[in-house]
């Protein structure tokens, strides 16, 4: 079931090496990549069985950062859970709060005021930009180019400053509340955001020139780690990984949620190739689209309150709700079961990276060691998002 090119090279290598191995009595080598390794964005461990530089079998071992959020959420009240879910995908934390709050609102039958929905959507997209811009820089490091990551940190800083000045937290905003937002935006924030969005578009151009246009980069990523459409669906890939396989599906567009994405004019990019380059390229385009969404929404924020009328002590009525949104890493959803108590009865956190990375044992067969790094980088996972 491997991709054609991969499969051919794998079979050829196997056939050639089989005789050699028999004659020389060589055996493969097990290479332990991680848990502490620069390519793993945290503490993921990949056990790879190598034959020369070719991977015969590889399997990620997770759990080095398992924090048991599903269990922890059961002993917390609804407002307290947002502080947990902040820390799942720590680079785009505001985006993690939104689906959970939306699920709780759905159970309560509350909808946030329009102004709050606008601000939510803007902050959601800002956290996407902060997250994906770091991906674009980190991609360079994984492939050996050192400069992009510094440019990414430079420009991500502007976005983080924006998030901090609005919410008070750089990484863990905890700004979303059931029924709206904690506070309104500070004065001057909108103009600042416009300026930053312009800078971020410049950053995207820089990265495109520095990395994506680079022939070496293209030769490293094109045709590597091909995921066909049906396999992507089977494994439940989501986000850019799914769209890179040619599936035109973006939850921001294809789902009706009380968020404001459909008020802006933007485009869902797909790519037919399904290789590493396609995944990276889609993320680059998405960052550009996000800056556009933010720009458009900034102009049309209506006046009004940011908090609906909700009781001070929140008890969520009995029921089950599933809400998922298109997070920076892919589809992030919460299956919230409430028993009419202060806290949720059960929260199933469907994180994007868990599904995205579960394809690796299939995907890494037959590739070379340097391609492990490229493929993992292009799948783009965050450890907190796998282990939760």
């Amino acid at each position, binding site marked *: 079931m491997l991709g054609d090119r991969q499969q051919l090279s794998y079979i050829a290598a196997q056939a050639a090496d089989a005789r050699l191995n028999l004659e020389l009595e060589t055996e493969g080598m097990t290479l332990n990549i991680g848990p502490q390794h620069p390519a793993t964005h945290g503490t993921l461990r990949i056990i790879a069985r190598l034959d020369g530089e070719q991977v015969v079998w590889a399997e990620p071992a997770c759990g080095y950062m398992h924090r048991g959020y599903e269990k922890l959420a059961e002993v917390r009240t609804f407002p307290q859970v947002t502080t947990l879910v902040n820390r799942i995908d720590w680079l785009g934390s505001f985006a993690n709060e939104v689906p959970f709050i939306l699920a709780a609102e759905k159970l309560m039958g509350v909808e946030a005021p329009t102004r709050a929905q606008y601000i939510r959507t803007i902050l959601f997209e800002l956290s996407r930009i902060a997250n994906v811009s770091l991906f674009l820089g980190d991609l360079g490091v994984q492939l050996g180019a050192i400069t992009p990551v510094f440019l990414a940190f430079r420009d991500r800083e502007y976005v983080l400053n924006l998030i901090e000045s609005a919410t008070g937290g750089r990484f863990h905003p905890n700004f979303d509340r059931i029924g709206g937002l904690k506070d309104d935006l500070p004065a001057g924030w909108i103009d600042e955001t416009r300026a930053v969005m312009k800078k971020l578009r410049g950053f995207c151009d820089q990265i495109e020139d520095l990395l994506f246009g680079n022939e070496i980069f293209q030769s490293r990523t094109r045709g590597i780690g091909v995921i066909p459409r049906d396999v992507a669906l089977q494994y439940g890939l989501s986000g850019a990984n799914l769209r890179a396989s040619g599936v035109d599906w973006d939850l921001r567009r294809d789902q009706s949620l009380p968020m404001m994405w459909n008020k802006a004019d933007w485009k869902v990019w797909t790519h037919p190739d399904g290789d590493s380059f396609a995944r990276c390229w889609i993320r680059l385009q998405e960052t550009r689209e996000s800056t556009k969404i933010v720009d458009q929404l900034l102009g049309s924020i209506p006046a009004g309150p940011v908090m609906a009328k909700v009781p001070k002590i929140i008890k969520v009525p009995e029921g089950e709700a599933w809400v998922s949104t298109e997070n920076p890493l892919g589809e992030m959803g919460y299956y919230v079961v409430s028993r009419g108590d202060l806290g949720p009865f059960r929260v199933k956190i469907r994180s994007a990276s868990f599904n995205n990375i579960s394809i690796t044992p299939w995907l890494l067969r037959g590739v*070379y060691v340097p391609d492990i790094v490229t493929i993992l980088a292009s799948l783009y996972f965050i450890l907190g998002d796998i282990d939760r």
Partner: protein
Amino acid sequence: MSPLLAEIPYWGESLFRVLGGLVAVLLPAGTIVYVFLFKMMSFMQSRLGPMEAGPYGSMQLFAEVGKWLQKEDIVPERADARIFKMAPIIVLLSTFLLVVVVPFGPDALFTDLETGIFYALAVSSVSVLGILIAGWSSANKYSLLGGLRAAGQLIAYELPMVLAVMGVVIQAGTMNLQKIVVAQNSGSMFGIDAVGHPYLISQFVGFVIFMIAIQAELTQAPFDMPIAESELVSGYMTEYSGFRFLIFFIGEFATAGVFAMIASVLFLGGWGVPFSWFGWTSIDEVDNWMNFAGPLIMFTKMMLIVFIIMWIRFSYPRLREDQLQRFAWKGLIPVALANIMVTSILKVVF
């Protein structure tokens, strides 16, 4: 015997040469690390680099060396200790052996070998041994992969380098580096004496191949898979710490300096300026002050070449091992061979 050293006894002369060798290797290495690795890289990444040690961080290198010297000299338990300890020294040794043939002025040179370039290319391969045994003896899979990659890569790129140099040798008609310098500076292009005849222009293809090859020989990006910090952690250097790592580190940048010097000798006219500027016609007429100005000129040209090497290093991602081999064998070597052919035909015709 050169007039400069005529009055000095043999032991003094030897001492002078050893000190000169140290200066010729370490001074460029230090300058390269500070100017390019600390400052140019930082500026290219929109930051300032080290700023605390000394004015504008200029003493940073000494601080780093001091730090490394204090560190424990760790040998992994299952490593082959003797070979493990030897490896960095072999790598640095090849750098010192290389600098021996580089001329810095009409008389300021260590040895004047007739087959200088041949010698230089030969001893530059010694570092492969050091890297290979470093990778093997570390008892670490990453080091092993790195060492093997390095060996494969260095051998693959030795060939285009040799072939690129062939063009110069054919054009100059000599393998003596000093004579190559003289040939470039006393020659003329299209009848204009003012620029001399740097082989950069007539051997441009050779120069490009040579630059690519030394980029690979120095394992700088985009050819840095032996080190590949994002996949092989640090390749063959993974297990080294303290002063042994320091030696590897010095070796890396000293070799960059020395290779850049050889490149400037071969393609940019080395220590010399076009002789016609001062009315010299041969090496014997060159004034004695060139022995002092020469090293400076050489240093400037070296910095220029290292700038290009580092600029590429800081901008490009790295290739994959198989792509790199393919590039060497299917790309560079045929082009280099064609270059030799064209050069020799033109040499015979004109």
